[in-house]
């Protein structure tokens, strides 16, 4: 922590982003404290994945600041950005495993690239990460041979393999059966409790949101409209939040609106 404003690990200030002339984020503010587990909820297509990509710097905001550990990452050059990203792990919504590499090479990607570990050590570490997400003995398989849920979990293993300081999960439990989903929720909670990781999770699943979150932020209409502890969100007076967490078709959120 350098000069960190209080102890904020991630801070998005007034972030706006347009794609092909369409505004997706409009003056979004969000902050995540060090060691906190924040969950972002919101409707499909409202810009949750885009927000995560801003945090790790693969998308640059049109205007606004993204501060990680006190540094504005929108001003870093490629080299500094790569160094900064060593502190990050990210699970993509579609897992984004490398098709051409085996599961071993995928999960151990950074170990192969940047560490001095021997092959045996890497194999051991990879097997350990895979077992944390409930997988075993698939190191030699190619991603195309895996089921959707297995890919997701391999992606999760890849994200946690370096035990990063900050970890971003894009819908970690979608596509998994309820039992496996709960295992993953426990894992996220565990990583956060034991390793003091700062995590940002995007999810639609309110049950897992309540389970993982220290705080929940709701993204709606290009902005964060509510942030609070799970209890606060659950008992929120805001009609939009209320409709979302109860999953009602009737309410201020128009179901045909895009």
């Amino acid at each position, binding site marked *: 922590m350098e000069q960190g404003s209080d102890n904020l690990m991630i801070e998005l200030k007034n972030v706006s982003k347009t794609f092909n002339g369409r505004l997706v984020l409009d003056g979004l503010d969000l902050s995540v404290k060090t060691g906190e587990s924040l969950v972002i909820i919101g409707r499909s297509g409202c810009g949750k994945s885009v927000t995560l*990509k801003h945090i*790790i710097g*693969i998308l640059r905001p049109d205007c606004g600041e993204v501060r990680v550990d006190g540094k504005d990452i929108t001003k870093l050059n*490629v080299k500094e950005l*790569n*160094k900064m*990203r*060593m502190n*990050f*792990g*990210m699970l*993509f*919504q*579609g897992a*984004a*495993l*490398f*098709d*051409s590499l085996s599961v071993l090479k995928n999960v151990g*990607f*950074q170990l192969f*690239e*940047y560490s001095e570990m021997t092959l045996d050590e890497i194999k051991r570490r990879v097997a350990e990460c895979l077992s944390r997400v409930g997988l075993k003995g698939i190191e030699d398989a190619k991603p195309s041979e895996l089921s959707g849920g297995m890919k997701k979990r391999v992606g999760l293993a*890849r994200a946690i393999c370096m035990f990063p300081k900050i970890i971003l999960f894009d819908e970690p439990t979608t596509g998994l059966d309820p039992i496996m989903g709960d295992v993953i929720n426990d894992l996220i909670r565990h990583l956060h409790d034991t390793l003091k990781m700062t995590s940002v999770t995007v999810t639609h699943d309110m049950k897992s949101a309540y389970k993982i979150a220290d705080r929940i932020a709701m993204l709606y209409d290009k902005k964060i409209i509510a942030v609070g502890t799970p209890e606060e969100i659950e008992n929120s007076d805001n009609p939009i939040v209320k409709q979302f967490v109860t999953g009602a078709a009737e309410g201020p959120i128009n179901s045909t609106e895009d």
Partner: protein
Amino acid sequence: MGRLLIKGFIGNFLNSTYRNIKVFFRYVGSLAILLFRTIFWMFIPPIRKRQILEQMNNIGVKSFPIVFLISTFTGIVLALQSAYQMQKFSAEMYIASLVALSVTRELGPVLTALVIAGRCGAAMTAELGTMKVTEQVEALETLSANPVQYLVVPRFLALIIMVPLLTICADFFGIMGGYLIGVGKLGISHGMYLKMTFDPLALKDIVTGLIKSFSFAVIICVIACFEGVHSAGGAEGVGRATTASVVRSFIMIIIADCFFTALFYFIMAK
């Protein structure tokens, strides 16, 4: 009335030509930027030997059969077509020189480049395009790997090594194709054919051919990778990018060929 219409046509024509030229130069500019970035990252360790070898195998070894086939048949056709004319003057033995020069200076490099652009350039674009639309390129970035260094550099190195090598093979097999016809069919003696092949053939003919093929390799790589990592819009987008990659490489190869031929002609002629 009619004159106005024609004026309108010409105006439109000039306007759209101007716009197209602008688009063309902007495109070439982005390719140049990618090329500079590739050259920059080429010298930054680690050198990915395994990946480079894999690409070399893919590009060089696996393209060898088709390059062999095309260059041999081109040599044969060239010899036959020129025999048609030369026989009228009983100048068959010059067929050897004609085949040797046109293959080394022109057909070897160009045909090899077109084959590689169609065979490997398209595959590269499709692979990188798929990686792009499934977020694998972004995933690389999150894992602190530079996509240019990780994806483009190995392909670039493999291409600039293998395309000239394949061109040398194509030169050889093209001449061999001509030899088959010249000696087998037209009754030129073995010794005479070889003499007429190597007498006019100077080192500079082969070298200029190789300079061409080297530049074609750069063109193929830069266009294929550029189209790949800039594709968007799912499977359809990847398909579009692949088509664009092949068409644009062909066009740029022909333009570069024309440029180099003219350049060498004026340098050597003076």
